[in-house]
């Protein structure tokens, strides 16, 4: 039986196990929407802006580990996804983006709603396709999903001209994929693994620095085993939070620009840095020449380009993090005469503990105005790490990372690499769609939340009960903090002079709205909001000029922190 390209696409999505699609229709993709009701297993969520669709697909992917799917029309529909595609690309998130395109005979004619989205998105996708023949559609979709989720995951875009969607063909889904030009190396090199175990045996001050790769390769269990068995303290990037239990005594908190004192000092003094699925981003390393100055560096990453991109590495392992960590475990298990790890690392753990005690994360409590850190702590207390937390970008994001604890992977969703304001709310919608029974909370700022607030209509119309907690300081707080510290307090364009009334705004959309101004009310109101069956906004009026500390000024060494 012959099917149209639109039907072939939807059949392919079924074959890939897709359940949820986040999208927005338009002229070039009407054919897909025309056939969508024939596929009730594919739930479509109509967003209010295409950026919401791509972030929701991204949040869905981060929360589940499966490929998120976003469907938009040509031209502006496609360009509106670009920020979200770049967000997913920077954080290696598997997403497939289906864009409509003008009919092939019109391509290049500046037709209505035509844009070269394959060209525009090229630098920020793992790969992309323009489908010119309906016969190629099935294998391209198969490859797109395969590329998105394997190796170093990432976004893959498929551009579908309208005439291809209307053309007919016999649907046949390819069973297997073979690509001569794409074969990610997953298994670790045994000799390299042996070198690592040898370094581990000799090290007296080892430190694990883990990143998002541990989460995307589901290596959390392996990482935890290694650190707990060998008594190695652990720090992680923003992207890696949740891969190691946040209440374990070996956990030092995040490192980098707003990392903890203990984590950054540990980097400064370790003799063996084990980087797992992390890429030595500038926000992590600070001044690169002073990063881990006395350490031998082991770097495990599935992407060869990550290795020796920013720092020199003594033992590189190009492999899937989980397989590499398993390899290290297996090697250790057959290793004779291992040291007594507790004894070997005791002085180091004591030193690290001292740093933790000397300079823990702290803030000065105040009843009114409320301190934003207090709000994050309360959220953690009430949810005990069981919630999925998303964030916007800026101070809200850093406080969420610092003052909450994460015990499981895929419970902290944040735009790490690109730093996309407006990410958190639609991402929370995506995560909530995947986990309808979980509490999903977007920790937001009053600036960021306005970048995709229109998705409140999406949340209300599908009753997606996401909770937004706005740490409302009336500023674009992180930029204001930089202006305060490094730009002579010239608060140019960072004061949000006219914020909407977020309570009324929530109500206007049909959601619940709450406002808190006193610390004593925070717990009660949060509880109330979390108990609402639908989406809710909690507008927390916080100290306007609170800063995020510690802070490593841009370009300074990691151990040169500004403390509270």
């Amino acid at each position, binding site marked *: 039986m012959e099917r149209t390209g639109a039907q072939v696409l939807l059949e392919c999505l079924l074959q890939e196990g897709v359940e949820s699609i986040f999208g927005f229709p338009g002229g070039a993709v009407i054919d897909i929407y025309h056939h969508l009701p024939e596929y009730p297993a594919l739930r479509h969520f109509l967003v209010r802006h295409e950026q919401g669709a791509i972030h929701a697909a991204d949040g869905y992917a981060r929360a589940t580990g499966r490929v998120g799917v976003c469907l938009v029309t040509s031209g502006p529909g496609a360009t509106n996804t670009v920020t979200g595609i770049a967000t997913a690309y920077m954080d290696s998130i598997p997403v497939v983006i289906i864009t409509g395109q003008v009919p092939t005979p019109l391509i290049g004619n500046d037709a209505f709603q035509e844009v070269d989205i394959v060209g525009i998105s090229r630098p920020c996708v793992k790969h992309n396709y323009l489908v010119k023949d309906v016969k190629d559609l099935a294998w391209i979709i198969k490859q797109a999903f395969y590329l998105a989720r394997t190796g170093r995951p990432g976004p893959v875009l498929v551009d579908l001209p309208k005439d291809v969607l209307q053309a007919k063909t016999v649907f046949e889904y390819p069973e297997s994929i073979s690509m001569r*030009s*794409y074969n990610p190396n997953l298994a670790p090199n045994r000799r390299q693994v042996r070198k690592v175990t040898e370094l581990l045996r000799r090290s007296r001050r080892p430190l694990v620095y883990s990143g998002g790769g541990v989460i995307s390769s589901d290596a959390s269990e392996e990482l935890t085993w290694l650190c707990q068995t060998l008594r190695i303290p652990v720090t992680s990037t923003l992207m890696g939070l949740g891969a190691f239990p946040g209440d374990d005594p070996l956990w030092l908190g995040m490192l980098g620009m707003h990392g903890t004192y203990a984590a950054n000092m540990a980097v400064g003094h370790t003799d063996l840095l084990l980087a797992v699925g992390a890429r030595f981003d500038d926000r992590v390393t600070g001044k690169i020449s002073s990063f881990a100055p006395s350490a031998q560096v082991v770097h495990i990453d599935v*992407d060869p380009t990550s290795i020796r991109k920013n720092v020199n590495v003594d033992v590189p392992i190009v492999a899937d993090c989980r397989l590499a960590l398993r390899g290290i475990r297996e090697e250790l298990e057959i290793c004779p005469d291992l040291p007594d790890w507790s004894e070997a690392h005791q002085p180091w753990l004591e030193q690290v503990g001292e740093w933790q005690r000397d300079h823990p994360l702290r803030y000065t409590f105040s009843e009114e105005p409320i301190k934003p850190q207090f709000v994050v702590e309360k959220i953690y207390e009430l949810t005990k790490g069981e919630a999925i937390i998303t964030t916007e970008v800026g101070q809200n994001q850093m406080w969420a990372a610092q003052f909450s604890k994460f015990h499981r992977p895929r419970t902290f969703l944040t735009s790490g690499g690109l730093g996309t304001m407006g990410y958190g709310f639609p991402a929370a919608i995506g995560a909530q769609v995947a986990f309808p029974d979980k509490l999903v909370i977007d920790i937001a700022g009053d600036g960021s939340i306005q970048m995709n607030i229109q998705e409140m209509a999406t949340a209300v119309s599908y009753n997606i009960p996401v909770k937004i907690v706005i740490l409302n300081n009336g500023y674009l707080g992180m930029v204001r903090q930089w202006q305060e510290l490094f730009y002579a307090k010239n608060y140019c364009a960072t004061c949000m002079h006219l914020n909407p009334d977020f309570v009324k705004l929530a109500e206007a959309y049909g959601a619940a709205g709450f406002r808190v101004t006193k610390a004593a009310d925070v717990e009660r109101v949060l509880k109330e909001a979390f108990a609402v069956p639908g989406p809710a906004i909690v507008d927390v009026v916080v100290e306007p000029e609170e800063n995020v500390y510690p802070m490593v000024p841009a370009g300074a060494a990691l151990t040169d922190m500004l403390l509270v």
Partner: protein
Amino acid sequence: MRHVLSVLVENEPGVLSRVVGLFSGRGFNIETLNVAPTLEDGLSLMTITTSGEEQIIEQITKQLRKLVTVVKVVDLTHLQSVEREMVLIKVNAEDERRAEVLRIADIFRCKVVDVSGNDLTLEITGDQGKIRAIVSLLQRFGIKEFARTGTVAMRRSMQVD
């Protein structure tokens, strides 16, 4: 240091812009670029000359390999290889100087591929040194047009120490 990279790619639309976009997007430098289909269906060979420190070249080759449409990348720099470039040079050759131009052309084993009353068009093949040499010799006659293919290169079958 100058490096010659031999890059085998899937011959499909957009592959050139993926490669070129990678260089411009990451701030790498392309000195010459040559691309044409190979004998095998669906594959093209690019020869790219670039320059940079070892760490940069390592990034370039890794980033190229990471592109889904790139099949193989070989850095010919540390291998024994044959390197050639072809150039067409239209040079002034008035009657009184024509003999002199032809003599130089002969020494460099150029072919004369076009001729007019005022000029000669020479075809020359060689490595970069040879091309630099003839250009500097012909410059005093006045080079009117100049077109070059960029380097093409191939690993020698015998790698002698």
